[in-house]
């Protein structure tokens, strides 16, 4: 327990100490909310979609969690680069605990990031439909965060250096983000695109958040949380395996 805790704490301390990173990572979501929220808002309303900002904000929250969580998993590559990975790998501790503590820390950081984006959105003009559902939103945020920290950790376990990093961002994270129903509703999508979006676990996270915050849901909570939980469990297995095979 103590081991999981100290690795969790490490992630939080590192997050808290990198103020520049915190501020930097808030810029993008804010920009999305302002530019897209207000930019597309009038057209969206004219098309009969309602308030676009309300549609968009849960997606932007999910997006910032996706990025923070995946990157914090990928940070293992930096731990390798700067040597700290060796310290963790030669310690007489099961890799599972190390992976778990680290991922839990990364997920917590990502949830905090999501909450901050949520608070900012309130200033931009976002209105929550039902405050009683905030705990549901938090659970959804945590599941998204944990899922993608595990995902990032698994990918990083396969990489020896930082060279492939850009590749991962462009070919994995960006598609996950754009094809998740963050910006557009799922109704009326071309069939092929719809299948891709439905195969993307982030879609269910976005959907659950949207359901909890503004009462709009395409899949329903049951479906959302079942899919998220199943993917988390699968990734726990796969990532533990990949992490256990790392050689320093």
């Amino acid at each position, binding site marked *: 327990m103590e081991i999981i805790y100290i690795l969790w704490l490490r992630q939080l301390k*590192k997050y808290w100490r990198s103020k520049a990173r915190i501020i930097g990572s808030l810029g993008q979501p804010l920009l999305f909310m302002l530019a897209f929220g207000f930019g597309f808002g009038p057209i969206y309303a004219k098309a009969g979609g309602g308030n676009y900002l309300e549609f968009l904000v849960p997606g932007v929250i999910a997006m910032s969690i996706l990025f923070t969580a995946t990157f914090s998993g990928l940070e293992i590559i930096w731990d390798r680069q700067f*040597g700290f990975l060796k*310290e963790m790998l030669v310690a007489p501790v099961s890799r599972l605990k190390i992976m778990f503590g680290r991922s839990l820390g990364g997920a917590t950081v990502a949830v905090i990031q999501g909450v901050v984006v949520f608070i900012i959105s309130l200033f931009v003009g976002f209105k929550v439909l039902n405050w009683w559902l905030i705990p549901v939103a938090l659970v959804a945020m945590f599941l998204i965060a944990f899922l993608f920290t595990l995902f990032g950790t698994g990918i990083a376990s396969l990489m020896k250096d930082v060279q492939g990093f850009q590749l991962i961002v462009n070919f994995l994270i960006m598609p996950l983000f754009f094809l998740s129903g963050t910006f557009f509703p799922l109704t009326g999508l071309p069939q092929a695109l719809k299948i891709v979006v439905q195969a993307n676990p982030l879609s269910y996270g976005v959907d659950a958040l949207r359901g909890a915050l503004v009462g709009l849901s395409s899949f329903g909570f049951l479906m959302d949380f079942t899919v998220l939980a199943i993917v988390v469990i699968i990734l726990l297995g796969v990532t533990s395996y990949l992490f256990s095979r790392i050689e320093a």
Partner: protein
Amino acid sequence: MIKVDNLIKKFGNFTAVDNISFDVKDGEILAFLGPNGAGKTTTIKMLTTVLPPSSGKIELNGYNPLTQKDKARHSFGIVFQDSSVDDELTAYENMMMHAVLYGIKKSEQKVKIEHLLGFVELWDRRNELVKNFSGGMKRRLEIAKGLLHHPKILFLDEPTQGLDPQTRNHIWEYIKKMNAEEKMTVFFTTHYIEEAEKAADRVVVIDHGQIVAIGTPAELKTKTGKDNLEDAFISLTGKTIREEGADSFGRMRQAGRMGGWRR
């Protein structure tokens, strides 16, 4: 305490460690010497469970580092050649991390950390982030960390590289003291041959992945007819300067890239 039999490590076609055998007795200080790229670090990595050998047998404190990883890992401490501390944590936090990872009791954590940070003269700066430390300070922190859990075997991979003579002396005195008081077995590599001459009970000389000589410093001097260990070392390994950057890690990366999936 350490037994190595016919150990081989290959990276692709390159044989970094080529069929070496030796043993280290309980409480002995053994210097593992060799020019750059001779296979020292690769050997240490295999001994410390970081790299699996291609073939051969290792026994550490009676445990097999391949199958009894955790028991083997409890038995040793290691100071790596390059950094293994977290730059974005303070010196104290790094020590605490190590204490927790090695299962040091809560009641003893603070006392031990204070003692060791005091010893390497970093206690006053314990709350500073490691990234603001000089190279020598980082080295000292690494050493304090390696000693924190009172290991039975201490591996030191060029521990005193880049340190001034004062600090080097200080650190060696402490290591010798730990060796004498706790019968800690010490396995170290260094390019400062005079350190080996002063501290080591026995010396293993390795070159091109193979052992070229084993013996006490005195024996090696007699064998080569030289009056100091540095000259003996040069006469054993030749005068050629080794390719820079051809260390095992570079080879490994190359091997990984050539046969790898990334490109």
